[in-house]
């Protein structure tokens, strides 16, 4: 089988073609540059090899030539840069209506939970032709969720969410790798991405689910007593969370942040950090009391009661940072404006 000696990775997402096109362009450009240099070196080396009695001709240099061979490569580089940036923007901007899958990484496994409540380990089932957004966090060290056939990769960090997205184009089973070194069994942190036809996927999805993620989030919201303060009206001791997701929030210290997944997550785990204007600092931290999966469920629930925004895109650090945050590290990816 040719399978034993592949030279080109499978193309199984809408992004794969875009990345490959740029890659081929670069192969041609750099191939030509390499060839040009190699031919010159070999030709000069042969043509001007030492012959007794023939002396080298001293040439000082040539400023026009220097400018030419600085400017032309630079222009070519700028084309590559721009093309690369366009592809990157595409990769980093999840479509607004993508279906959401929560991923929790830990040494050394991937725990996956679909918004519909299906759970998987080291496997991810997705349908062909649908945009899927992964909302990922890590329980311990940095991991990286890498699907070569889709040409996507995103580091998964502890303490915050990062996102990536794709739309699979071909049914099949593809590799899932952890690409950021994470300890002993780093190379064992691999899995399969199972891309199915929509009908098959639906059938798989309907088998043995414990109900949607937002429903377990709702249950937890009640169990943890969140609802006593976060009431569905304006009278609560905490802000009303209905419709809050995706909206700007005024903070006590005068800043405004967008209530994205990272903000909600931070509010659960470190309520004092970005307190909403007009509320007392009375909320206890849930750090250590809820697991990463439970935080995901709570976030999914809060998103689900923001029905007006239900389909709106998530502005999280990796997907669409504001220009103000360029070049800075954000502790948790929330957009501070």
């Amino acid at each position: 089988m040719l399978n034993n000696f592949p030279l080109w990775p499978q193309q199984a997402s809408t992004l794969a073609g875009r990345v490959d096109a740029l890659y081929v362009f670069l192969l041609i450009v750099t191939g030509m540059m390499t060839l040009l240099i190699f031919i010159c070196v070999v030709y000069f080396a042969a043509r001007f090899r030492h012959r007794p009695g023939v002396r080298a001709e001293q040439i000082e240099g040539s400023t026009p030539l220097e400018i030419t061979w600085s400017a032309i490569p630079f222009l070519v580089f700028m084309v590559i840069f721009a093309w690369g940036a366009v592809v990157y923007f595409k990769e980093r901007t999840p479509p607004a209506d993508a279906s959401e899958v929560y991923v929790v990484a830990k040494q050394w496994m991937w725990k996956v939970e679909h918004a519909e409540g299906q759970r998987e380990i080291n496997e991810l089932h997705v349908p062909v032709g649908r945009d899927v957004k992964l909302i990922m966090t890590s329980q311990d060290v940095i991991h990286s969720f890498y699907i070569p056939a889709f040409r996507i990769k995103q580091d998964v960090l502890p303490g915050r969410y990062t996102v990536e997205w794709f739309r699979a184009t071909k049914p099949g089973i593809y590799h899932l790798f952890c690409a950021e070194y994470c300890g002993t069994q780093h190379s064992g942190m691999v899995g399969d991405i199972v891309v199915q036809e929509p009908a098959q996927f639906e059938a798989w999805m309907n088998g043995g689910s414990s109900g949607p993620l937002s429903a377990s989030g709702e249950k937890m919201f009640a169990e943890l007593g969140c609802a006593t303060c976060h009431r569905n009206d304006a009278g609560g001791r905490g802000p009303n969370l209905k419709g809050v997701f995706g909206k700007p929030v005024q903070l006590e210290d005068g800043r405004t942040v967008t209530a994205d997944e990272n903000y909600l997550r931070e509010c659960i785990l470190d309520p004092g950090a970005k307190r909403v204007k007009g509320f007392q600092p009375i909320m206890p931290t849930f750090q250590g009391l809820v697991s990463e999966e439970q935080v995901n469920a709570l976030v999914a629930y809060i998103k689900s009661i923001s029905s007006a925004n239900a389909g709106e895109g998530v502005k999280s650090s990796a997907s669409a940072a504001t220009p103000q945050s360029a070049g800075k590290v954000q502790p948790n990816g929330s957009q501070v404006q």
Partner: protein
Amino acid sequence: MSMEIAIPQPAERETYLNKEYGVWSWLLTTDHKRIALLYLISITFFFFIGGFFALLIRLELLTPAGDLVQADTYNKLFTMHGMVMIFFFLIPSIPAVLGNFLVPMMIGAKDLAFPRINLLSWYLYIIGGVLMLHCMLTGGVDTGWTFYAPFTTNFTNTNFIEAGMAIFVAGFSSILTGLNFVVTIHRMRAPGLTWARLPLFIWAHYATSIIQLLGTPVIAVTIVMVAAERALHLGIFDPKLGGDPLLFQHLFWFYSHPAVYIMILPAMGIMSEIIACFSRKRIFGYSFVAFSSIAIAVFGFLVWAHHMFVAGMSVYAALVFSLLSYAVAVPSAIKVFNWTATLYKGSIHYDAPMLYAFGFLGLFTMGGLTGLFLAALGINVHVTDTYFVVAHFHYIMVGGAVMGYLGGMHFWWPKISGRLYPEGWARLAALIVFIGFNLTFFPQFILGYLGMPRRYYDYSHMPEFQVLNVLSTAGATVLGVGYLLPMIYFLWSMRYGKPASDNPWNAAGLEWKTASPPPTFNFDEEPVVTWEAYNYEELDAPHTEEVRVAR
């Protein structure tokens, strides 16, 4: 070779080698040439340790299953391979050996500005090296040479603090070398040796020193923070305590990206010397080559975050760093074009150093051009942390820096040892290294684009990668032979090699105007420079041409 023309040297002519004997005359020497040899021995030792680890890594990857060593062992192997090769071989290699030996001679000085600091820097290197060895012997470290937080600070069970101390101490050795070079180049040049007359080797070392001086302290203080975090759980890099692991990556790469230029710039300096000498020509576009070194040193500090495009950084920051990465590619391209243009209408000799230079040109070009792939954001997402990156930086740091180092060793070996190595073996070794290198690392580009991640010891999940891995391992074996050969014939030549004349290549440059091996204070008379660099036209004027032919 030069028996007829070399003035018969009385056996007792005093050189830096035979001035004094005994262990202490070496261990307490302040002579930059002796210190260079101390470094040569120490870095060769670490090179073969690091190479041994590399060989074990390649053997493990011969089969998809993790069968040769255990997962933890493998992780320690690639970590120690990286740390040893980068901090204990590549960074000191050219500057501390050839730079130490040649910088004072090339500028007509009797020694570096601070000879005792130079010796101190070797001792710091040795202390760092001993710590590293001790760390290896007591279990090693499995953090990867990049020692990312929070894995290193909170999760690994291995003794990172000792490895960190080793790197910290070796870092100060590197800083002191850079400090010595900057001061020496500024203050100790011979009369008449203006900046525009400096050999490009000196320009390259000047640029390198700037990076060593301004980059290394940042990694030092980062190691302090990581060690403190690891020992006391302070929270500086721990997200559970409010810290940010990305801050670590920014600080780490702020040094570790410019560190790549610490490794490659001196090799570029060597290339300029060799190509000029064996083309019998002044370097094409001298000032462009000189200033491109400085440009690389400056731009090199502005591109660190291109290692972090998928780390969770903002899209806009990624744009800026990608753009700047293309900017830093331009000066490297300028150098390659100028070297190529230097060959034009030259009178090209194919001695062993020149073969290494050809090898360097080929490998560095490929390494540099694959950097364009990595700097392209869209492609970077796919290939970062895969074998594509591994192949790319080995093309630069092994194909470029080590090839340059070997070329330089061959070029200046007659000056260093006063002996000639066997030319045939040297040419053969150059060929073997070139072939072995490409066989080892070219398949890794393909593996990387296929998606094989770095630092995997077991790829039984994707057995289709085996053929390329077997090729790579086979290449590594060839490469290993190619690296052993020069060590053998250099050692052989110290005893059996023909005595070298003062200037066996008829090369320009002050270092060739003194005896081989040089006397302790380099020059019997203080040189006064009245000529431009690379004055091969004068050297090859008819009356010296016969000398050249006689070789």
